[in-house]
């Protein structure tokens, strides 16, 4: 089928899912017929409850999982045609705070990919400094610290810096603020927004938090039980009549009612 003229990807499509399905080896389907496109500079939020298949969908972008049906295209090329190592080094990956290497200092954590890519030492050093400053951590203070000497929020910032180290054009974030307390979480979200405006990366975020989805996403892909229920702009999402989307909005409205004292 490869000689069949494939539908041309949209001009600025960076990530494209085409009828993607994923089945466990036992045959149990986790994802069904997902099709969606992420354009350059967009922040797509995969919203859904635990077990909806968000993380699996995310992992198909950097080949931590491969589709069993359909295909995923990165920059117009099927993921299966990419060498996984090359592909992953072009994509920043951020998971909940536990992903830092406990035996490495902040400096080594951030510089690992540039180092295995054999960047010149001077360039690595400047890069690490710039990145720490970018995520709001004073380099002189944090360079030599180990992950266990950081707060949850600081660890998450280091995680962001590490993901940005090799200057990827795509950033994947799996519940990036999930393990943080609500205040730190709000703070980091805001800073991430500012950062995103500066950097203009193509971002895919997995979350089950409606507020986070509305705040960070330029588009929201709603997932439920392995299906894509729809993809909306934040405004469309709030006014959608789709039952699952409406349920999420209703949960937000309940909060507002409480605030208004009703």
């Amino acid at each position, binding site marked *: 089928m490869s000689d069949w003229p494939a539908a041309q990807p949209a001009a600025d499509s960076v990530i494209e899912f085409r009828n993607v399905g994923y089945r466990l080896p036992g045959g149990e389907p986790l994802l069904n017929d997902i099709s969606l496109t992420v354009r350059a500079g967009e922040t797509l939020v995969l919203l859904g409850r635990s077990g909806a298949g968000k993380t699996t969908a995310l992992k198909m972008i950097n080949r931590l999982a491969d589709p069993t049906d359909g295909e995923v295209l990165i920059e117009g090329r099927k993921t299966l045609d990419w060498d996984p190592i090359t592909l992953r080094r072009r994509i920043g990956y951020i998971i909940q705070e*536990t992903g830092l*290497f*406990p035996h490495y200092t902040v400096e080594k954590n951030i510089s690992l990919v540039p180092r295995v890519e054999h960047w010149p030492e001077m360039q690595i050093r400047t890069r690490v400094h710039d990145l720490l400053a970018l995520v709001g951590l004073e380099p002189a203070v944090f360079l030599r610290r180990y992950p266990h000497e950081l707060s949850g929020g600081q660890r998450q910032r280091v995680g962001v810096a590490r993901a940005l180290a090799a200057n990827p054009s795509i950033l994947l974030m799996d519940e990036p603020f999930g393990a943080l307390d609500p205040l730190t979480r709000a703070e980091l979200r805001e800073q991430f927004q500012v950062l995103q405006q500066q950097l203009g990366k193509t971002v895919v975020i997995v979350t089950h938090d409606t507020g986070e989805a509305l705040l960070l996403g330029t588009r929201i892909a709603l997932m439920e039980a392995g299906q894509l229920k729809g993809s909306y702009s934040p405004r469309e999402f709030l006014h959608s009549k789709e039952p699952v989307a409406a349920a999420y909005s209703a949960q937000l409205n309940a909060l507002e009612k409480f605030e208004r004292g009703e």
Partner: protein
Amino acid sequence: MAQFFAQHQSEIFQAILEHVWLVGATMVLAVAIGVPLGIVVARKPWLSKPILGGANIAETIPSLALFGFLLPVPWLGARADRLTITALTLYALLPIIRNTAAGITSVDPAVREAARGMGLTARQILFQVELPLSVSTILAGIRVATVLTIGIATIAAAVGAGGLGEFIFRGLAMVNNQLILAGAIPAALLALGADFVLGLMERFLRPAR
């Protein structure tokens, strides 16, 4: 007693050197074989049963019998120290294999996932992440194996490989407690010393958490 030690000083010293050589060579071999096998056990679950099973069986063979079994093996049987080091290595493998595998499998899955997601190769994950995080567990295995080997190495005297067992066997034959102690005390001190030093290394190399 002290007088006895003073009189036989050079002989005892000689035996200690022999003993240390037997144990040292054994540990180098056992680590060189055991750590890679432990990595295989952690990586390939289907190979873990045969490898651990084999090492387990070696562990259950009485040491004197094992020396006997190996005696007729062509190249090995030709020299007592070859024979001894082979037998001792077989005993030392199990704790090293087991601890290496345990160390690697206990690495936080999120850390491994992050490493994969960053685009590290399997080899880079092993050397940059999994092994450094397992170092203290692996050393704990080496420590157990070393102490065990220092003890069992005394039996090597039975096949003429020398070492501190020499005194023990002579003492047994001559019903001379002083002779037995001349072998047993240094062997016990060696074991304690090795345990202490390796214990320090283990603590020093334990990754911060």
